[in-house]
């Protein structure tokens, strides 16, 4: 293995952090990545079962637990399977090799004479009486992982690559399965009166009026500008929380206007400017073409408002959260509450799919702050729907201006991608603040503008550099010093707005050159994996017969390689436009290397596509007054069942390529394919998302 050891292993070197063999003939596999609906746990278990040759049903897979599972940072950016999967493969291969080597010495044979059947060791196909459970010992578990064992040859796989069903689904569809469903002894329900904005102070509130509205018993916990209603009856505290904002007077509340909800607002703001790529030429030696595209602020809008539980007993804090990172959350809790890390255990519990950083961590901090005031009880904080929409961090608005300099035959010789956006990630490790922290005495300073570095795939710059064979490319990134509302990571960060811009602009250049958009792409692209996908999708959607368009029906195509180094996807869509766009059919071709679980992979690809259709056609966070003004599903609509396209998915078989996550790769291409299909359908180009009825009408009038 010439590659360096995955970070997951570097940070958790001891074997016992990952793997334990238990007396009941089960295997405990502990991982740091958490299940967020992406079926990661079954995939990781498949990898371990494959390398160890142990039946899948013997595995008990633990994830996201600061007491019991390794620290693998956050679960994000399709990294679960890329990093964690590689780690689990190396670890289990090494464990197997270690134990078999020792057994071979004992039996005086060669390791290659020993085979494994459901965890039992055979010598020349005869039972040896030894198995992982009785033969592995402390020396194996205490060992440091070297990462040098040779995993199996993919061509021999029996478990990896199979559509094995997930284990967690059953509980979730039959009763309790989510953090929201946890019941603890002595549990108290809590709701929070939210500070309307950073630095707002609570001048007064009418507790008697709130109690009248609540019609039941509860206690009020107040710490600085943080106020919570806590009681045994959930209905009562919910009523208190619904009534409370009308009976509270705040000073120093931020005032925003609808101008803040547009991406163009960032262009008026001071920014931290960065430059990536080739130097700017002295003069533009050719025809200059530019176009500007944008995506507004978008919500994670998970189906479940966030929830957190905490208990403070005997100087120890136990927290349950649907956070994407239990260790980073533990660090934040220690800092905010003035505890040591050792005093805190954070356990992951399942939440609803949100594909990024929503209110999960904040709800956990809410619960912990209350628990510190009411020891020896479990405090369960459930956010309300309007609270989730108003206070979860949202995906930042993002504006991309592209500039191409064309030679005499219309080929780009110089390319500039200029981005204006707020921070795409405001997790605390990227300088962001926990919501509750800002309401406590001694609040933290204003969040610092910060974005993931290029080495982590970038944030605003993600997918900003085209993979086409243009000779000179660069990105200019204007990272706004402030954001009007809290922003943080949402599926793919800047990839969707940047791919929307890039792949729409490419269509515009093709049209200008009088070349078919597929042919134009192929003419400027040498990566064989990308070319294959584009040709595949074009063939399956009958691209060649799409006709001249203009009659309200349109077809569009787009592709990208997520982060320019992860999974590839090409997407074609067929749409109909009346007053609104309906996406009727969609074709996906994806290449994500070795596929661990094809059913889980298809689910991710198609889920990403539907999420992108929703975002492209409908989604925009409205901003007004103190903050976010779109607080329910009627003001923040998402795609409905009757609006789902028929989807045709094909995944390339590439068992010898490293596994790449599938969660984000269809996201950007879908958006751009819709933009391109819209142009084909009615001859107008809409560069600002979402492509709503109003935008379509305006474009038709303007065109």
């Amino acid at each position: 293995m010439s590659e360096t050891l995955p970070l997951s292993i570097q940070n958790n070197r001891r074997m016992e952090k990952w793997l334990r063999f238990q007396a009941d003939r089960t295997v405990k596999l502990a991982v740091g990545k958490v299940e967020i609906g992406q079926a990661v746990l079954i995939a990781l278990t498949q990898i371990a079962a494959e390398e160890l040759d142990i039946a899948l049903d013997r595995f008990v897979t633990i994830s996201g637990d600061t007491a019991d599972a390794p620290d693998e940072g956050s679960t994000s950016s399709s990294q679960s399977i890329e990093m964690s999967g590689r780690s689990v493969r190396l670890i289990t291969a090494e464990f197997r090799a270690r134990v078999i080597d020792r057994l071979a010495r004992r039996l005086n044979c060669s390791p290659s004479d020993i085979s494994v059947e459901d965890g039992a060791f055979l010598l020349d196909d005869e039972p040896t009486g030894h198995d992982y459970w009785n033969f592995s010992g402390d020396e194996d578990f205490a060992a440091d992982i070297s990462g040098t064992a040779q995993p199996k040859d993919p061509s021999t796989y029996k478990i990896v690559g199979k559509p094995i069903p997930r284990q967690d689904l059953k509980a979730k569809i039959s009763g309790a399965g989510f953090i929201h469903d946890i019941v603890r002894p002595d549990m108290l329900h809590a709701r929070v009166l939210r500070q309307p904005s950073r630095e707002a102070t609570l001048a007064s509130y009418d507790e008697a009026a709130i109690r009248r509205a609540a019609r039941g018993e509860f206690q009020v916990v107040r710490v600085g500008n943080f106020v919570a209603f806590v009681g045994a009856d959930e209905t009562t505290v919910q009523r208190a929380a619904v009534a409370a904002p009308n009976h509270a007077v705040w000073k120093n509340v931020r005032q925003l206007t609808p101008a803040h909800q547009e991406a163009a607002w960032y262009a008026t703001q001071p920014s931290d400017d960065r430059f990536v790529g080739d130097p700017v030429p002295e003069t533009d030696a050719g025809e200059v073409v530019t176009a500007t595209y944008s995506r507004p602020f978008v919500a994670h809008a998970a189906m479940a408002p966030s929830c957190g539980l905490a208990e403070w007993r005997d100087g120890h804090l136990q927290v349950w959260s649907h956070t994407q990172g239990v260790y980073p959350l533990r660090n934040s809790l220690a800092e905010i509450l003035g505890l040591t890390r050792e005093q805190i255990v954070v356990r992951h519990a399942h939440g609803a799919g949100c594909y990024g950083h929503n209110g999960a961590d904040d709800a956990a901090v809410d619960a912990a702050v209350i628990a510190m005031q009411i020891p020896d009880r479990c405090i369960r904080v459930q956010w309300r729907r309007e609270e989730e929409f108003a206070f979860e961090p949202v995906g930042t608005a993002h504006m991309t201006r592209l500039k191409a300099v064309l030679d005499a035959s219309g080929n780009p010789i110089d390319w500039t991608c200029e981005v204006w956006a707020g921070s795409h990630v405001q997790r605390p490790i990227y300088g962001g603040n926990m919501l509750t922290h800002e309401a406590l005495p001694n609040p933290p300073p204003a969040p610092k503008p910060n974005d993931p570095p290029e080495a982590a795939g970038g944030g605003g710059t993600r997918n900003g550099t085209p993979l086409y064979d243009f000779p000179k490319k660069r990105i200019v990134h204007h990272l706004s010093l402030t954001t009007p509302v809290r922003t943080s990571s949402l599926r793919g960060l800047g990839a969707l707005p940047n791919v929307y811009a890039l792949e729409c602009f490419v269509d515009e250049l093709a049209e200008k050159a009088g070349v078919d958009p597929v042919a134009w792409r192929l003419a400027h692209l040498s990566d064989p994996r990308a070319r294959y996908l584009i040709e595949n999708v074009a063939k399956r959607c009958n691209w060649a017969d799409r006709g001249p368009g203009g009659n309200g029906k349109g077809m569009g195509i787009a592709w990208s390689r997520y982060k320019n180094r992860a999974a590839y996807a090409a997407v074609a869509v067929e749409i109909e436009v009346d007053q609104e766009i309906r996406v009727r059919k969609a074709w996906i071709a994806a290449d994500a290397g070795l596929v661990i679980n094809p059913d889980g992979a298809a689910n991710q690809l198609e889920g990403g596509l539907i999420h992108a259709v929703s975002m492209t056609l409908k989604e925009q966070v409205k901003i007004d007054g103190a903050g976010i003004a779109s607080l329910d599903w009627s003001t923040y609509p998402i795609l409905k069942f009757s609006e789902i396209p028929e989807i045709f998915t094909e995944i390339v078989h590439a068992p010898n390529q490293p596994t790449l996550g599938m969660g984000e790769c269809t996201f950007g291409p879908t958006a751009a394919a819709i933009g391109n299909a819209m142009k084909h359908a009615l001859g107008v180009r809409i560069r600002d998302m979402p492509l709503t009825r109003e935008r379509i009408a305006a474009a038709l009038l303007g065109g």
Partner: protein
Amino acid sequence: MSIELTVNGQTVSVQAAGDTPLLDVLRNHLELKGSRYGCGLEQCGSCMVVIDGKAEYSCAKDVSTVAGRRVETVESLLDHPLHQAFLDEQAGQCAYCVSGIMMTAKALLDANKSPTRDQIVAALDSHLCRCGAHPRIIRAIERAANVLREGARS
């Protein structure tokens, strides 16, 4: 006050104010956690239950209005073909939306064993799913309908 209703075939009596949301009674008084809180606004369908054969939101429904009526929740579906069909199709990502959707599907299939795809989709428009599991969910309901029809034939 004390309110009597039938939940999943059993008559239960709950002590609750009459305007307590049915969803809170199911989740907290009866500890049936399969009906979920998504919005409390009758907009998302996470809380869907079947009342006297009809799929209805439970999040904003006063428990007093279901006194003496028959309420079914997802916990009653363990032996229903819908349950296995959703597992067979792996019909969900996070699956938070699924239990409510299964109740709408239950009411639909009780009334119509051969729903067309359009009828299924129309019934599901009272639900939202954030994860894009829609195609699988529709397939799972079609699969369950098939199983029910075959069961009726044999």
